[in-house]
Structures are given as C-alpha cells and as structure tokens.
C-alpha cells in the first residue's frame, strides 16, 4: 500500500516538475520576457540582466566592467554568462540561451533540495526511532518533505518570475543550495565550493558558515541531544551507538581547508579577469562596498531604499551600521537555540538575510520559501500560516499596482509603494518569528512525549 502511495507521489512529482519547466519555457517565448527583466521586484542593481549585459559590453570594449555605476556583480558571472547576453540563435528570442541557463539552474536547485530533503527526512525518522517515538508520532503520515520542498521551489511564482525575468538570483540560490546539500550529504569540497561561490556572489550567505559547521560537526537536524540522554536515563541503558554523535572537529577543519582553497581559487580567477582594470580592490569596492553602503536608491521590495532616500545625510552612516549589525546580532542567539537543527538554522538565516538585505528581490524569497518545505512535518503546528499565505498573495498583487501608480501613472506617490514594502517586511518577520517558535515548540513536544507529560506545551 505504502509503495503504491509512494509511486503515485513520485509520479505526480515528475509531472509537476515537467509542468513547471514547460511553463517556464512558454513564458520565455513571450516577447520581451513580459517586461519582467526590468521589474523592480525581480531585478535589483545586483541581479539585473541589463546591468550584466552592460558590464559585459564595457569589458568587451576594454574598459573595467565596474567603470560606471552599472555592474556590481562578480567578474566570474561576467565571463560565464556575459557571452550569453549577446549570442543569439536566429529566429529565437534574444536571450533564449541565458533563460535556458536559469531554467537549468532552477531544476538543479530543485533536485538538490529534493535530495537534501530526503536526507533530512531519513535523519529525522532515525532520530525518532532512537527516541522510541515512532508510535506516538504517526510516522506513516509523514510527508515526503524533499518532494514538497522541491515542488514549492519549482512552482513558486516568485521562482518562476525570477527565472523568466533573467535575474541572476537562480544562480545565487543554486550556490546556496549546493552548499547546504554538500554539507548534508557530507561532500565537504562541494559544501565549501557552494559556500565560497554564494558568498562571492552576494555576500550575505557568508553567515551560513555557522549552520554548515554544525551540519558537518553533528550531522543533520535532530531533536536536542539532551532528549536522547534523558531517554536513555529513563531506560537506564546507555547505548552509545544510538546517541547522536558528539561535535567532531575533523570535518570542520576539512571544510575550512577546502573553503580556503576555493576562495583562493576564486580570487585568483577574479584577479586574472580583472588584471588590466584595477584589480581585486575595485571589485570589492563595487560589489561588497555597493551592498554595504546602499548607494542605489531605486525602489525595490525591501525597506532600505526609501529610508536612505529620506534620512538626513548626517545619520546615514549610523543607520547603515545599525541595519547591517541587526543581521549579525541575531546570529548568535539563533545559533545557540537551534544548534541541533543546522538546516533549520540555515533557513532562518536565509530568511533574515532576504528580509534585511540592501537589495532584496523575489528570488531571495523564493529560496527561503523553498527551504521551508523541508520542515513541513516539524512545522505542522505553525500559527498564522493562512494569514501568511494570504499576506504573501496580497502583497505580490498589490506591490506591482502601487509601483505602477507611483512610477508610471504618477497618481500615487512613493509612500504607497513603501507601504507594501513595509507589509512585506512585516510578513517576513511574522514568518521567521512564528517559524522559530513552532520549531522550538516541536522540540518541547518531543520532550514532553519522552518525559510523559501531557501535551499542553503549545504556546
């Protein structure tokens, strides 16, 4: 029976995957990409396709790609994707090749998410087994979180829009997922590669080093170690083999070595490609410097652009520090509280970054919404999920309308659009807070099951 169910599940999974790919291909064939490539929600100054093309053009005409304030991405992307901005097949839409690359990146990401999700599910089942909770929690009703996460990632309108809108975020997302996949399946060089590339492309994934270290040190998500000890004290037999492994430094050192190797490699490659135009310092100044100083004030779905357009010049530096430190402040408390669930920690970090980053786009939201699919079983009790869903739908419908009113028709003003951005930020805050709270409650529930307390620990 279960086998049949699984078969049906996997069959419909592949159906959905092909459907989403076909949908993307159809959208690509629309003339001018439905103007998605110039939407502020899709293309930020960092991920915009037109800016990439401009950087490539500057490089082709023997100028530094960073000569103007146009291109702020990596020089490697320029070498890899740049030629695709010009090459075209006769009789086909102009950016077909580039769009195909994004579609492939999306599919690869979805497959990696699926593999990681299966890995996580197995680890979760194993830990439940070792806690003897298999009967109390109906394992048979467990969803295939890997498939669900992959489908959420592939069929999410945000992902589709980011892919068809020719932004570089599918590739950035792929690097992040590659890093998590490598860490989950203990492919240390791959994890290091993903981490280095993701950091190189968009800086914020640098903080993923903490979940990756936990993943490599203690293995994938499991209930807190204390529970296992309690369980075994109850049974009064200390079966070492059933305990989750203690933190081991070996893979971490291995990871550090590989990360160092890859970053040197990436820097050398960048240095070679920028040898005649100002070198690495210029690259850091116009990529990381541009991210950190929020120079471009064009509207996006984040909240920083309007703030820095309005704030008095005198306070600019102060607020820059405050907002960036806000991301860093939360790293430590979250790491302490969720250290036994490194993948979930990674999800929370990704969500926080995409909420507080200087130039957010829907591609970033697509990533953390996809990762959220991994934890469907643990987060089944999450509050406000309907409210959040409706909020996301409402904001993604209202935000383009407000943008149109302000920019194109001139009947609205900037506050209209900013209001939707604020609502979006609040929704993300609620998602993160409720998600963290639901995960902590889930751990409490497991503890209560072990200690035999009644299940009233929901708060």
């Amino acid at each position: 029976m279960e086998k049949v169910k699984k078969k049906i599940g996997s069959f419909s999974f592949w159906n959905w995957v092909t459907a989403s790919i076909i949908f993307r291909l159809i959208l690509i064939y629309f003339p001018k990409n439905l103007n998605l490539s110039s939407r502020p929600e899709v293309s930020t100054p960092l991920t915009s396709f037109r800016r990439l093309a401009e950087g490539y053009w500057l490089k082709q005409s023997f100028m530094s790609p960073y000569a103007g304030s146009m291109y702020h991405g990596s020089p490697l992307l320029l070498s890899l994707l740049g030629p695709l901005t010009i090459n075209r097949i006769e009789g086909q839409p102009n950016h077909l090749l580039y769009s195909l690359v994004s579609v492939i990146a999306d599919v690869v990401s979805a497959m990696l998410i699926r593999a990681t999700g299966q890995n996580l599910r197995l680890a979760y089942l194993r830990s439940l087994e070792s806690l003897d909770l298999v009967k109390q929690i109906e394992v048979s009703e467990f969803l295939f979180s890997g498939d669900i996460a992959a489908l959420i990632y592939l069929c999410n309108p945000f992902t589709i829009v980011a892919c068809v809108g020719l932004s570089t975020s599918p590739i950035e997302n792929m690097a992040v997922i590659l890093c998590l996949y490598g860490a989950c399946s203990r492919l240390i060089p791959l994890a290091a590669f993903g981490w280095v590339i993701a950091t190189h492309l968009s800086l914020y994934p640098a903080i993923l080093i903490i979940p990756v270290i936990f993943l490599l040190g203690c293995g994938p998500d499991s209930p807190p170690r204390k529970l296992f000890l309690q369980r075994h004290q109850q049974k009064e037999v200390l079966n070492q083999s059933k305990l989750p492994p203690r933190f081991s430094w070996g893979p971490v050192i291995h990871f550090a070595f590989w990360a160092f190797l890859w970053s040197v490699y990436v820097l050398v490659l960048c240095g070679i490609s920028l040898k005649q135009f100002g070198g690495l310092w210029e690259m850091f100044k116009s990529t990381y410097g541009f991210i950190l100083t929020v120079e471009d004030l064009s509207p996006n779905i984040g909240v920083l652009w309007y703030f820095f357009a309005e704030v008095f010049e005198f306070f600019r530096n102060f607020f820059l520090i405050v907002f960036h430190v806000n991301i860093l402040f939360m790293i430590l408390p979250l790491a302490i509280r969720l250290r036994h669930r490194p993948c979930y920690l990674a999800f929370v970090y990704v969500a926080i970054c995409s909420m507080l980053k200087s130039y957010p786009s829907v591609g970033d939201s697509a990533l953390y919404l996809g990762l959220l699919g991994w934890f469907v079983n643990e987060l089944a009790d999450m509050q406000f999920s309907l409210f959040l869903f409706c909020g996301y739908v409402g904001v993604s419908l209202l935000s383009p309308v407000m943008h149109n009113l302000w920019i194109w028709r001139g009947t609205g003003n900037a506050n209209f659009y900013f209001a939707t951005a604020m609502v979006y930020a609040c929704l993300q805050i609620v998602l993160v807070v409720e998600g963290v709270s639901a995960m902590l409650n889930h751990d409490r529930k497991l503890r209560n099951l072990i200690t035999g307390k009644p299940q009233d620990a929901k708060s």
Partner: protein
Amino acid sequence: MVLLQRPHILLLLIDTHQFLQCWIAFGSANEEGQQQEEFSEELLVKPLPDHKLLAHFHFQSSAPPSTSNGCHHHLFPKAISQLVQKFRVKEMELSFTQGRWNYESWGGFDPISSSNAKPPGVELWAVFDVPQHHIDASWKNLTHTLSGLFCASINFLESTATYSTPEWSFPPASGNVRYGTFPCEAVCTENLTPWLRLLPCRDKAGIALLLDRPSLYRGFYHSQRLHLTSTESSSEGIDSGIILEQTLTVVLQPNSERAIEVHASEKHVQPSWSLSSIFGKQVSGRCVLAKSSSVYLLLDWGLVAELKFPNKENGKSAANGLTSENFWSNPSFELSVNPDRIFLEESSSHSKSLSILYMFQVEKYSESEPFDIGLMWKVPVAWLCQQTPLHASRFFMGSGNERGAIAISLKSTQFTEGFMSANSKDGSCELRVDVFQVVPWYVKVYFHSLRVFVDQQPRAVSDFIEKIHVSPSKDKMSPGVMEVVLKLPCRVNTAALTIEFDKGFLRIDEYPPDANQGFDIPSAIISFPNFHASMVFLEDDSLNRSPLLSKFQEKCPVMSYTEVLLVPLTTPDFSMPYNVSTIKCTVFALYFGSLLNVLQRRVAEEERFLKAKAAKKTGRLPLLLSKLSAKLRGSGINQD
C-alpha cells in the same frame, strides 16, 4: 589765484586727452618689437529669412606678450588677465544663452552660427596649460572665479558630477579640456553688466551704446560669449599674450510700423528696419579707445541670389571698383546710409552666388550726426539660409518615470542633396558626423543598448560607427560621456541613434527646490568635421584686417547643438523623513524584540510560575499593598 588756475587745469586735461588719443591711435604701428594693447568694436547685421534680424556684436581686446606689463594694462581687462595668469588658461570659452538657435531658418553653415549658436544656459569649456593632475583643481578655481565675475551660478560646475573630459570629439582636441554646461541658468541683465564692464568704454560710447537691455532681452535668441586665447609665451619671464573676444549675438524682430499697415499682398515683404528702430538708440561716434569701429551689413548668398543684382555676371570686376552703386541701390531694397566699402565673398563651395558685405565706418559720425543705418525693402523676397549637412534633433522615447531612451535623429537638409549631387561621381561618398553627448549621472545610460537606424531601418552598430569613446557615469561622481564618430553614406535620408537609460532615484536633499520641474540633460554637440564654415572676403589691405572678418576666415568645423531635454524624475514624499525613520525603526524593533522573545522564552518555567501563582491565591502584590498601607497608617499615627 584759484580762478587763474582753472583754465590751466582744463587745458592740461584736454592736452592729455588728445595725447592719449594720439598715443592709442599710433599704438600698434609705432614700435616694431613692442606691440600695444588693442581694442576693436564691430557690429554685424544680417537679415534672416523669417522676417527677423541678426545682430552680432564683436569686441576684441588683445594684450601682446610683454615683460613690462606684469599686472598693469592699458585697455585689457585686468580681471581676465589675472585669471589667465593664475589658472594658466590656454583657451577658454564661456557663453550665456537664452533661447534656442533655429538652425532651420537661421542657418547652420556660416561662421556665425557654427561658433555663436550656443546651447541654452551656461556653457563653459577651458583648456589648461597645467599638468594633468592639477587640471581639476584649476577648473574648480576657474568656475568659482567666473561665477563671481559674471554673477552667475557657474560655481555649480565645480562638482565632478557636472563637468566632463572630452577625449577627441570636442573641437580643441586635447586631453586638457574640461567641458561643462548648466542648462537651467537664467541669463539676464545681471550677467550682461559684468560682461560689458570688460569693455574699455563699457556701454557708454561706441557700438556698445546700442546694447539697450529691454530691446535685447525682448529678442528670440540672445547669446553672450567670451572667448579667450592666450598665446604661448616664447621665453621665460614674459607674460603670455591674450586675445579676448567678446561677442553678443541677438536675433530680434524688427517691429516696423509699416508691417501693420501693409496690404495682404505685401505680407511677404521683409520688415524694414533701422538700428534706432531695433535698439531704440543710435551710435554717436566710436569708442575713442577702439582701434577700429565699424558696422557691417551682411547679405547672405541665398538672399543675393534672389535679389538679382543687375551686373551679377561681372560682380568681381565691380567689387574691385567698390564704389559701384549697383550694390547698394537695388530695385528691391534701399540703404539709408551709403556704405564706405563693399566686400564680395572670394569664393564659395556652393558657387551659386556670393555673399555681399557692406561696411560702414563709425569714425565719421559724431554726436551731432549719429550713425543709424536702415534697410528698406521694396519687393518681397524669400530665401533660405544654408543649413548644416544634417539637421539634428534629440528627443525622449518611452513614458513613465522608470526608464526611457534618448534618440538623436539626423535628417538630411537641402544642403546634403546638393553635396550628394556634387560628389556623386565617386560612389564611396561618406559623411562624417561626430556626436558628443554628456548625460548626468541620474540618467543611467546603458551603452550596450546603442542602436543605429539608417533610413528607418535598424542596422548593425559596427557598420556605421567608426569610433566610439564612452566614459560611463559614476553615481554622484561623474557624468556619462559618449563620443561617437558616425560614417554615413551621403545619400542617407535619416539616421538615428537611440540609447536606453534608467532614471535614477535621488536622496531628498539632492533634489532642487522645484523637484517636479525635472532635470535638464545638456545639449548634444553634432559636428561635421569634414565641413568648414568660413567666409573669405576680398580685401586689398590684409594688414589692416578687421578682427571680425579674420574670424570669419578661420576654418571652423560646422557644429550644431541639439535641444536641451527635460527629464522628469520621480520624487519621494518630501514631508516624510521623520515618518519613514520612525516606521522603519518600529518594524526593526518588532523583528528584533519578537524574535528575541521567542528565543529566550522558557515555557516550562512559565508553567511552573503560573502553577505556583495559582497555588498561592493571594498574590504578592496585594500582600505588598497591605503591608505598605499598614506602614503608612502606622507612621501617620505616629506623627499625629
């Protein structure tokens, strides 16, 4: 005693005055080695096809290189010479313009329009004779000095975001050029007065007397220009010689009373005018300090061709006679004053006809007999001025405040047709067009989106663009500069360049007070380096050549400026800074507080606490309160 002395002083004054005059008159010729400072004033009047009149004032002061002068000058304005010496300016041009030169009806292929038709607002370029790394500092100082000198906001050109460094398309090709424009400057009499102050006679005598402010600013086009060139000092210790050329070009509408009375049939008769009717003033003699002072009346070759002078065939022989009455008493018009000399253009590329220049010496006139020429038209004439090879115009494409495109369109004029027919023998005829375009940083141009349309067909960029130089704009740092050399086939009808841009978003304090008015994009310069506008007039004595005519003889490439574009940028809500800060910070506090709350919450302890509280029905607070009240009561009793 006092009474006796007075005539003496008067006599002395007259004496010195006369001596001074003689001395100045001899100035240029008396010594071979040491030249003297010179000043000359000229006015050129030219009827325009669309019933308007062009008046072009040309004042030239020159200071020869000398050791003795130092900072002492006789005629030359001290402010200018100090400026040249301090900032080591090699060449500089500053123009204040109001109105737009109408290239279609006022012509674009003559020396006046190629060097005096300027973009609206202020345009300044300068070439410095200093090492590369000092140029920007010199430029900054120069803009501030000029700003003070001319009561204008030239100091806005100080910031690096407003001026650019043309590489090769700008005429004085050299790496030391800095070019800046400020299109939104409103030019008015406050800029003219300091400009006039540089003239030795100001506007108190000579031709400058005509510069009556109300009639000048009533005109359709008004451009005051200051051009200075400093000659290289040959040896150490000798100051460089400076030539300062001040021109004022005005296009006016002669308001002849007759025009109202004329019948419908005479509608096309050009309005008759006289200097006094245009400017409301007359010239009462020359400026005594001027070496030469003359007024010219230029009849365009197109006009001359229409007028049909009786002896057009043997025009050259008549020009040698110079007194031939045929040239100024014509059946179609009548001059109120007999010209002193008549010049015929030596040769011209068009060869249809030759321009005629009438010269009037102002020296002959005095206050009792003021100089006032007038032109009375008898028959209607219609003619066309010679236009630039391609007529350039520029416009925006797209709508909305997010993005758009700039298009520069070039249309062939009647000139190109003639040129094409002349050069049709060899098939490979090419027309070279240089385009120089500066865009401010908030118009973020995508240079890769440059497209070329020839005869309304999209064409490959590399086929028509021979050379391109681009310096992309840096936010708040430098403007974007695009220099393109186009090679177009001669039989081209239309050509267009389009380039896409995104509109930038500024901080609230970067917007000008009238933020919704929009921002100006400076004019593009379209030049045709293969064509030179020059007019060579037959003159017998080349020694005593007038500066204006020698200026006309210089070969300057044909240039035209496109329109200034006004780009509206989106504005934020200017009343919101505090609201945005507070709302934003509230959201951050919400995030930080609630997440931290979730993380540090200990549900088990809370439960224990609640249970304990439930067990002890009487809470701690009532207990405390009862204790407190008891104490208070007790103390109160004690005090009582």
